[in-house]
């Protein structure tokens, strides 16, 4: 293991930001820290960068104790949400900054710095813009400059704090792909903080999900998506429908409909989870619980169906072919979830 975080805890005054988080990252891995705001993911990232000091716990990198090094000594590249570029310096000067502040003995020559800057500008596809000032660039270009600047110090690890949070959706998707490509080219261990589950699942080798300062689950995107550890993770990974149900005698009851319960189902009151596209919609005499259609919208390749059922609103996303002809606002249909996950409690 390259990076080992061991029971790291941090409180700001009386607010506990992190309550004993342990996780590991492999050499060259792309790890996403995913969680809602206040989950402690940014605090963890800042501790890794050396910008915060944990109250307890240990952080090591290839066996070296990182906590004994200051941010400046760690050689860990950091990319901030709002770019944090030096506005009075050109793009090239920004990228060269990390090299130019080195002590004279280890500072590369002017030519070496210029060559390195040119390489990095090529890597981030901004060859022509070295003489511009940050204010003359778009948000996406600025973030690429910030990444090049962080890579210039040949970091042993790259940290990104919601790097695409301030960009619009299209640019964000483009940069996401591109970031993965840069990671694969440079091979630097990368830790990426985001609250966007789609971004995390799309990009990372593994996803670590945090909630209230604790690690809830860590694993490959598909594994986490297929087998969420608890109700929170299922909900947070998106596209979830959550219904109150009851398990008794091997049968699951959802409103006026009962079906065979999964073999390992908890007993009594349960929370029933399924993905928005994992349900079938049938006419009044079909399988499923009753629900009233309140809205029907074609959204891209899928149809969004708004329903009222079991005392709450339900949103399904189905391919047009799976939507029965009777589906229209005001009609009562039956909803049968295909694959459900059950968690105990209400």
């Amino acid at each position: 293991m390259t990076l080992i975080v061991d029971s790291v805890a941090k409180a700001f005054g009386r607010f506990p930001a992190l309550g004993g988080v342990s996780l590991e990252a492999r050499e060259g891995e792309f790890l996403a820290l995913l969680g809602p705001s206040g989950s402690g993911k940014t605090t963890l990232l800042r501790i890794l960068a050396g910008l915060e000091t944990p109250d307890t716990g240990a952080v090591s990198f290839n066996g070296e104790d990182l906590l004994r090094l200051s941010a400046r000594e760690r050689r860990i590249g950091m990319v901030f949400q709002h770019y944090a570029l030096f506005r009075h310096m050109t793009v090239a000067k920004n990228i060269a900054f990390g090299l130019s502040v080195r002590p004279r003995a280890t500072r590369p020559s002017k030519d070496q710095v210029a060559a390195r800057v040119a390489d990095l500008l090529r890597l981030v596809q901004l060859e022509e813009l070295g003489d511009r000032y940050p204010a003359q660039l778009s948000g996406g270009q600025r973030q690429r400059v910030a990444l090049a600047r962080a890579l210039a110090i040949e970091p042993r690890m790259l940290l990104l704090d919601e790097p695409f949070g301030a960009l619009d959706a299209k640019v964000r998707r483009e940069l996401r792909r591109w970031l993965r490509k840069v990671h694969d080219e440079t091979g630097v261990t990368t830790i990426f903080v985001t609250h966007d589950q789609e971004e995390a699942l799309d990009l990372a080798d593994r996803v670590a999900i945090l909630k209230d300062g604790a690690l809830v689950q860590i694993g490959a995107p598909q594994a986490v998506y297929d087998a969420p550890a608890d109700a929170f993770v299922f909900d947070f990974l998106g596209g979830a429908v959550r219904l109150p149900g009851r398990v008794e005698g091997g049968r699951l009851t959802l409103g006026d409909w009962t079906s065979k319960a999964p073999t390992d189902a908890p007993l009594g009151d349960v929370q029933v989870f399924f993905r928005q596209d994992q349900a079938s919609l049938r006419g009044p005499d079909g399988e499923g619980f009753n629900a009233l259609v309140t809205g029907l919208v074609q959204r891209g390749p899928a149809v969004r169906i708004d329903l009222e059922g079991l005392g709450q609103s339900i949103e399904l996303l189905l391919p047009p072919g799976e939507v029965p002809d009777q589906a229209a606002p005001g009609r009562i249909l039956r909803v049968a979830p295909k694959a459900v996950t059950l968690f105990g409690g209400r």
Partner: protein
Amino acid sequence: MAITLTWLSLIVLIPLAALVIKPWELGLDGVWRTLTDDRVVAAFRLSFGAAAIAAAADAVLGLIVAWAIVRYSFPGRRLLDALVDLPFALPTAVAGIALTAIYAPNGPLGALFAQVGIKTAYSPLGVVLALTFIGLPFVVRAVQPVLEEVDREVEEAARTLGATDYQRIVRVVLPAILPAILGGVGLAFARAVGEYGSVIFIAGNLPMVSEIAPLLIIIKLEQFDYAGAAAVGLGMLVISFVALLALNLVQTWLTRRSRG
């Protein structure tokens, strides 16, 4: 636009025009003789020299004060923040008398300086002290809001890139607030050049040594030499204008660079 110009004309341009026209009653030759008079030249040198030194001192002192108010939290921080404006509010004569009392050879600080053989009050040094005092708030108030706006993440980025505290401040923070420092220095300088009340008590007003240009204007007025007074005024106006224009150009250039 028209309204702005009218107001500007009434309040600024017309009085200035009067100042520009008046001296020529003496003829080109007369104006030249007035301005090259030894006593006038000495007064100009003192007024502009002391104002420049005071503005430079304010740049350093003001930056330190603004830095302390913005970056540190300590008991009395709000009080210090309020005290900064005091030189604005104090009648300049009061400031001048207070400074004189302190720096006079028998005053508490003046006596200290006198022991090591430095004459503070009644010398050009006294003039610089008074001008530094009245100029300080201009720099603090110009720098403070800009320093508050400096993005902490930018400094953190510098740290993760390996910059020492010194490199971070000199290469990242100072360039970001340099336009504000220059703006404050320009104001402090302009105020110092025209300052009369607080200087007059501490200067000693020795012709050729510690006599400031505004005092010379008053002296000429008292002698009913209106054209001569206007000539000195015009000289001050031209030098001040050139100095402020230069400062403004540098400031604009710095700002435009980082705003795009």
